[in-house]
C-alpha cells in the first residue's frame, strides 16, 4: 500500500480516533480516551514515527527499506509504552473498573501490519529483525500479563474470570482442529491419488468435494442435525456423545470442509511428477506399489503437505463455529460475547485464534521449505 497514505492515516487516526475507553463496569459505556490521554508523552513518539515513515517515502536509497522498518517498529513500541503508562494515571473508578481498547489502538496495529508486509529488505541476513522484534514484544507482553501489569485491561479481566474455561475451550479447539484435519487427510489423500491414477474418476471425486465446500456452515449443521441425532440414538455413539448438537456436527462439518484442499493438493502433487521419471521407473521393473512408495510419494509429498497446512489453517478458523452448536472451542467466547454485547469476550475468543493461525502457518511453512529442500537439493 502506498506508504504516504499509510503514514497519513497513521497520523490522522492518532490525532482523531479514540484509543481506549475507561468503564466503571462491564456493561456501562465509559469515557473515551484519545491518544494524548492514553499514550501520554509517548504520543509524540508515535506521531514522530509516522512522520519519519512519510519522510523516508520520498527518498530513494539502499537503506530506505531498513530504516522504514526500524521506524515502523516504533509504532507498536509507543503503543506498548502507552499500555504500560496509562493505568498509572488513576482514571479508574466504579465497581469493577476497566480499560477497554478501542478503534484507534487497533487501527494503529492494522496500519503497522500493512506497513511491514510491504517492506522488502535488501539483504537476506536482515530478515531476522522483524521476527526477533515480534518475539521480544510477545515475551514482554507475556511478562506484563504474568506479573499483573495488565490487570486493569478489560480483555485481561475477561480472561481472569474465565480462566479455567479458557484452557478447556483452547484444548477442545485444538483437538477439534487437529482431529478433523487428520481425519480429512486419511480420506482425502487416497481420494486424490485415485483421481490421479484414473482420470475418469477425477471429475467424480473432485466435483462433489467442491460442492461441499460451497455449502454454508450453518446449512451444513442443519443438514447434519437429523442424521447425527439418529446416530446418537445407537448405543456406541451415544456413549461417546454423538448427537445433533455438540462436538459431533462440528467435527463432521470441519472434516468435510478440509477434504477439498487436501484432495486437490494431493492430485496436483502427483500430476506435477515428470512423466519421464515414471516411465523410467516402470521400464526399470518397479512394481506399481514400488513406484508409489519409492518414487511418486516422496516426490508428491511436499505438495500434499502444503494441502494439509492449508486445511489446518482453514480448520482452526472454522472451528469457531463449534461454539454455535455447543461444541466448545474458542468460538464459545465469540458467540457468548456477541450475545452479551461484550467486545472483550469476543476478542478473548478471536485473538488466540489469530495468533495460533499465524504461528501454525508460519511454523508449517518453515517445515515445508526444509522438507522440499531436502528432497530436491
Amino acid at each position: 500500500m502506498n506508504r504516504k497514505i499509510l503514514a497519513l492515516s497513521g497520523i490522522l487516526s492518532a490525532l482523531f480516533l479514540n484509543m481506549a475507553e475507561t468503564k466503571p463496569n462491564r456493561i456501562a459505556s465509559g469515557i473515551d480516551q484519545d491518544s494524548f490521554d492514553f499514550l501520554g508523552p509517548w504520543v509524540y513518539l508515535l506521531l514522530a514515527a509516522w512522520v519519519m515513515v512519510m519522510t523516508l517515502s520520498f527518498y530513494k536509497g539502499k537503506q530506505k527499506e531498513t530504516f522504514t522498518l526500524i521506524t515502523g517498529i516504533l509504532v507498536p513500541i509507543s503503543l506498548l509504552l502507552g499500555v504500560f503508562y496509562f493505568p498509572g494515571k488513576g482514571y479508574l473508578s466504579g465497581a469493577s473498573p476497566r480499560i477497554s481498547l478501542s478503534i484507534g489502538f487497533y487501527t494503529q496495529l492494522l496500519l503497522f501490519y500493512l506497513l511491514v508486509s510491504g517492506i522488502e529488505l535488501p539483504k537476506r541476513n536482515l530478515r531476522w529483525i522483524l521476527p526477533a522484534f515480534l518475539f521480544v514484544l510477545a515475551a514482554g507482553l507475556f511478562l506484563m500479563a504474568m506479573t499483573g501489569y495488565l490487570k486493569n485491561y478489560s480483555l485481561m479481566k475477561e480472561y481472569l474470570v474465565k480462566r479455567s474455561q479458557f484452557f478447556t475451550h483452547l484444548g477442545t479447539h485444538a483437538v477439534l482442529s487437529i482431529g478433523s484435519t487428520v481425519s480429512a487427510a486419511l480420506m482425502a489423500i487416497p481420494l486424490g491419488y485415485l483421481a490421479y491414477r484414473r482420470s475418469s474418476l477425477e471429475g467424480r471425486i473432485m466435483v462433489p468435494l467442491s460442492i461441499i465446500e460451497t455449502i454454508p456452515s450453518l446449512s451444513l449443521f442443519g443438514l447434519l442435525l437429523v442424521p447425527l441425532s439418529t446416530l446418537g440414538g445407537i448405543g456406541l455413539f451415544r456413549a461417546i456423545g454423538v448427537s445433533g448438537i455438540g462436538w459431533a456436527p462440528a467435527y463432521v462439518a470441519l472434516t468435510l470442509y478440509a477434504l477439498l484442499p487436501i484432495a486437490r493438493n494431493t492430485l496436483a502433487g502427483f500430476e506435477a511428477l515428470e512423466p519421464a521419471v515414471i516411465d523410467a521407473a516402470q521400464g526399470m521393473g518397479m512394481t506399481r506399489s514400488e513406484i508409489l512408495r519409492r518414487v511418486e510419494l516422496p516426490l508428491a509429498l511436499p505438495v500434499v503437505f502444503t494441502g494439509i497446512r492449508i486445511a489446518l489453517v482453514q480448520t482452526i478458523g472454522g472451528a469457531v463455529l463449534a461454539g454455535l452448536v455447543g461444541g466448545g472451542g474458542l468460538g464459545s467466547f465469540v458467540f457468548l460475547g456477541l450475545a452479551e454485547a461484550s467486545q472483550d469476550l469476543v476478542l478473548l475468543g478471536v485473538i488466540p485464534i489469530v495468533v495460533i493461525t499465524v504461528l501454525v502457518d508460519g511454523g508449517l511453512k518453515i517445515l515445508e521449505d526444509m522438507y522440499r529442500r531436502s528432497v530436491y537439493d
Partner: protein
Amino acid sequence: MIRFEGVTKNYNEFTAVNDISFHAEKGEILIILGPSGCGKSTTLRLVNRMVERTGGNIQIRGRDIDTYDQVELRRSIGYVIQSTGLFPHMTVGKNISVVPNLLKWDEERIKDRAIEMLQLVGLDHNVYWNKKPSELSGGEAQRIGVARALASDPDILLMDEPFGAVDPINRLRLQREFMRIQQKLHKTVLFVTHDVDEAILLGDRICLMDQGRIVQIDTPEKIVMNPLNEFVESFFKGEGALTLLSRRSVCDAVEKVEFSGKTISPDASLKDAVGIMLSTGEERLSTCGGSISWDGILRMMRGDLK
C-alpha cells in the same frame, strides 16, 4: 538374441508397427533409424512390454517375452531414455543402485557395483556420489542414466534417443564413450535414433523404418552404398558416405610409406583425415608408423564395399 517375427501394433485405427521381422545378434548394436512417427520408439518399447504387441512374436534369449513375468523381464533389461528420467529425490549413488536394490543384492555388492559404473562412464565417484540430479549438466545426467541401466549387468540394453537432448559437442563425446564402453562389455543393444550420423557412427547394423515398416536392414556400409530404394537413398544422401569414414581409424588405411610432412594423431578417424586433407591441400599425412594418402583412402573404402 532379440527376434521379432511378424510383429504388429495397432492403436484402434492407427497401425504404428506393421508386420515387422528382424533379429539382433548377441553383442551387436542394432540401430533403429527413421523419421518421426515411423514407429521406432514403439518397436523398442515392445521389447520390454512397455507397449503390448497386437500380433506376432517377440523372443529374447530364445524365449517368448510373454513367458517372462513383466517386472522380471524389465529388471533383466537396461532401459535408457532421452530425458534420462533420473529420480530427482535420490542422489546419483542411489539412482544407480535402483535395480540392484530391487533385485535384493547385498549392500556391499551394490555399492561396489555403483562405483564401478560411475568409473565406467568416466565420472569420479568421490565427486558425484552424493550429488542430486538437479546439480548435473545434461551430459553428466545422461552418463548416469547409462550407468544406472548397466548397474545390474543386463545382457540387453534398450536406448531411446539417449543423446538427443545433449548439445552437439557433448553428444559426440558421449557417442565415443559409448563405443568404448560397448567394446568392453559387448551388450546387445537396440538403439533408437533419428540422427543419421549417429546411426552410421555407432551401428553394427542399421534397421531403417518408415511408417511402421522396415525398409532395409544392413551394415552402415551396405545401406549407404547399396540403398534398396529411393527412400533409403535420400535418407542417407551423399553425406552418408562421409560419415562412414568416421567409423574407421586412420590406422586402418596406413601405408608403409615414410612421410615427413604434416602429421595426424593415430586416434583420429578417416573422416578427420579427409577433412584436414581438404582444408590444407595435402594429399598425404604421416601417422600410425607410416602415412596415409588420399588415393589410399579411396581405394580402401571402395574395397570395403565390394
